[in-house]
């Protein structure tokens, strides 16, 4: 198992980082938070750099790179707390289009002419199988009804791919819906750069890009797994930067006549944070490569990556803020953009708890499944 990036991958990552450091500055992010800037110019630049085309297959006009590169892009977008539809388009919309073989749409994505996102979560829960969204066949197409929540860049993208169950067959499908056919309610709240929105569909016109069938579930799941790992990368990207900035701060902040980083209690916390970041990074790489190589162990790797990213943000966001002391708690300081990105990353695409439960089943801790059911019985 070789979990180190190739020279080309390192170069790509460094390029992305350089561009974002120049264009997606802290001042710019602050502007987005305070409503004085928008992401349009940044998006145009990203299109010029072919970033939306990254994982679009070459036959559809893309660069045809693997999921590893998508993952690296997601990590850098987290590190920069970048606003705009790129994360949703490359890590959510594109994988589902590729899985569906939706060539025309992919060409538009590669050209930067279309942005999109996945509408999966319902009532705050990211679920592999939709509970309430229903698709209905019409004479020549489909209509879709239901409410999806917490859609990444839901407030800004052109299109959604929506997971819904065919009322007739009970099978799950993936449906393309134009944003103009949906009722969109921004829920930016705490983390405005993610442009979250709730999206409601009332008999909206929909195209089945993965038609409901007995084998459609696993195909959709493969795309969702990519979204989940990309979100883990996004979280770890933010965490690594929190860690770096906290470390820098501990080397200059003086209390009791010494820099605070010279106190052993803090050193040990830094060692723990470093471990958490490296641990999450390594396992995220593992999941990325498992997806890229379509390894049989990919589902397990996906869950572990999201869990490790969750463990990482829990420690690093908490300690990062704690060790900055009061200054990190001020709006004026830039740390909170990263803290909020890290926390949101944990909550989106399934939280640690959900992935732990899924992993328990996958590991065939046979009794986990029955435990879930029994506990539910006890609770009700």
């Amino acid at each position: 198992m070789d979990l180190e990036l190739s020279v080309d991958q390192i170069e790509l990552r460094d390029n992305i980082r350089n561009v974002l450091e120049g264009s997606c500055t802290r001042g710019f992010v602050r502007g987005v938070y305070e409503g004085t800037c928008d992401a349009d110019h940044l998006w145009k630049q990203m299109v010029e750099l072919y970033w939306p085309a990254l994982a679009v297959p070459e036959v559809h006009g893309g660069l045809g790179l693997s999921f590893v590169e998508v993952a690296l892009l997601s990590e850098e977008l987290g590190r920069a707390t970048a606003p705009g539809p790129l994360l949703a388009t490359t890590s959510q919309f594109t994988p589902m289009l590729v899985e569906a073989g939706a060539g025309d749409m992919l060409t538009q994505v590669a050209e930067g002419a279309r942005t999109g996102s996945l509408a999966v979560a319902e009532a705050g829960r990211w679920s592999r199988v939709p509970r309430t969204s229903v698709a209905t066949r019409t004479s020549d197409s489909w209509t879709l009804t239901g409410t999806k929540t917490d859609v990444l860049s839901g407030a800004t993208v052109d299109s959604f791919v929506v997971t819904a169950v065919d009322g007739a067959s009970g099978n799950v499908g993936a449906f393309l819906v134009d944003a103009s056919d949906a009722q969109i309610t921004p829920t930016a709240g705490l983390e405005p750069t993610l442009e979250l929105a709730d999206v409601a569909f009332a008999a909206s016109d929909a195209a089945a890009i993965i038609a409901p069938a007995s084998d459609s579930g696993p195909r959709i799941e493969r795309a969702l797994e990519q979204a989940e790992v990309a979100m883990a990368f996004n979280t770890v990207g933010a965490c690594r930067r929190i860690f770096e900035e906290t470390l820098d701060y501990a080397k200059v902040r003086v209390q009791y006549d010494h820099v605070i980083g010279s106190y052993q209690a803090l050193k040990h916390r830094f060692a723990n944070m470093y471990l958490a970041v490296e641990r999450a990074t390594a396992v995220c790489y593992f999941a990325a490569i498992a997806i890229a190589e379509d390894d049989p162990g990919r589902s397990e790797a996906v869950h572990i990556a999201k869990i490790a990213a969750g463990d990482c943000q829990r420690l690093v966001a908490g300690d990062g803020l704690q060790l900055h002391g009061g200054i990190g708690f001020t709006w004026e300081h830039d740390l909170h953009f990263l803290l909020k990105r890290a926390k949101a990353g944990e909550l989106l695409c399934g939280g640690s708890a959900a992935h732990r439960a899924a992993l328990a089943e996958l590991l065939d801790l046979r009794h986990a499944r029955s435990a879930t059911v029994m506990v539910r019985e006890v609770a009700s």
Partner: protein
Amino acid sequence: MSGTETEGHEAIDTFRSDLQRWLAANFTDTVAASIRQPERTAALRAHRTWNAELVDAGYGAIAWPAEYGGRDADILQQLAYNEEMAAARAPGPVNAIGVANIAPAIMAYGTSDQKQRFLRSMLRGDELWSQGMSEPDSGSDLASLKCSAVRDGDDFVVNGQKTWNSNGDVADWCQLYVRTNAEAPKHQGITALLIDMTTPGVEARPIKTMAGDAGFSELFFTDARFPASALLGQVDAGWSVATNTLSHERAGVASMYLSVRQQFDDLLHAARTPGEDGTRAIDSPVNRVALMRRFEETRNLEFLARRTLDAALSGQQPGAEGSVIKLAWSTTSQRLSMTAVDVLGLDALDGRWAASFLGSPSLTIAGGTTEINKNIIGERVLGLPREPKGAA
């Protein structure tokens, strides 16, 4: 049980039921809502109005000596008071730091004029108070503060900056710690002043925190001139004013666990409430485990605090267990907020849980960081020597 003890219990029971009645009549849902409204100025106005009523009814700062408007309440009575206030979800005093810290300092070190002038109005909330201790470079290491006061005739001329002043932007008065002797060892050149915030040269700028507006300010002093009557205690003896003032509140630990218990109950309620899709967060085994652990910690905190209270009741002098309880309280409360985010998922990104989750880090920073608290426990409670290099 002796006769006196029975009488004591009866007195407490009467006190408790009187307070319950008074709260039922005066802390109505309307009043509660007006104090909790998001708009800070209006909320503060409502809080002040209600606070004055509370004080006039004899329920403000019951731990204070009677001569200053308190009841000389003993610890059992304080405990009953805290429990009833918590049960009614009634807010604490408007001048929370004032009542707990500044007033006792004035009682101990102030002139009779100062006592006359400040204590009653502080208690009623007629005047708002802030405290000026922390500075940008003096956080944990408070004694390193630099904001300076130079004598000019009888006046003190102050230059420098303070930060993290609660209500600094709306306060009428401030208890300010300044450096009056730069030559002396750091603990011996600090002086406490009671200053009028409308004095020229004093500027308060609100701090916006990552959780939004939390009512903190920075204070800037530019040749601000205060009369000799502003002096609290002796010149260069401010460190003892800061550290030797004992709060009258002996049952404060009770309010810590009571607030955490409330927080837990709220979370449990939210987890039991079905979401839009009909599922309940509490039905997930993982969530149940997390909630159960938080409950266990909440109860532990309660027992820890009760034990301290019982020790105080049996006449033992308070020791450094306060540090242990503060540590347990802040970490428990912070974990509770994190669990809320885990259990409630995306719902927690908005609304009150988001605020509590974002506000929770300040629990382990403000009023002595967890790190400093652990040092205090290690050194003062357990008798470990100081870190070789650090001189606290």
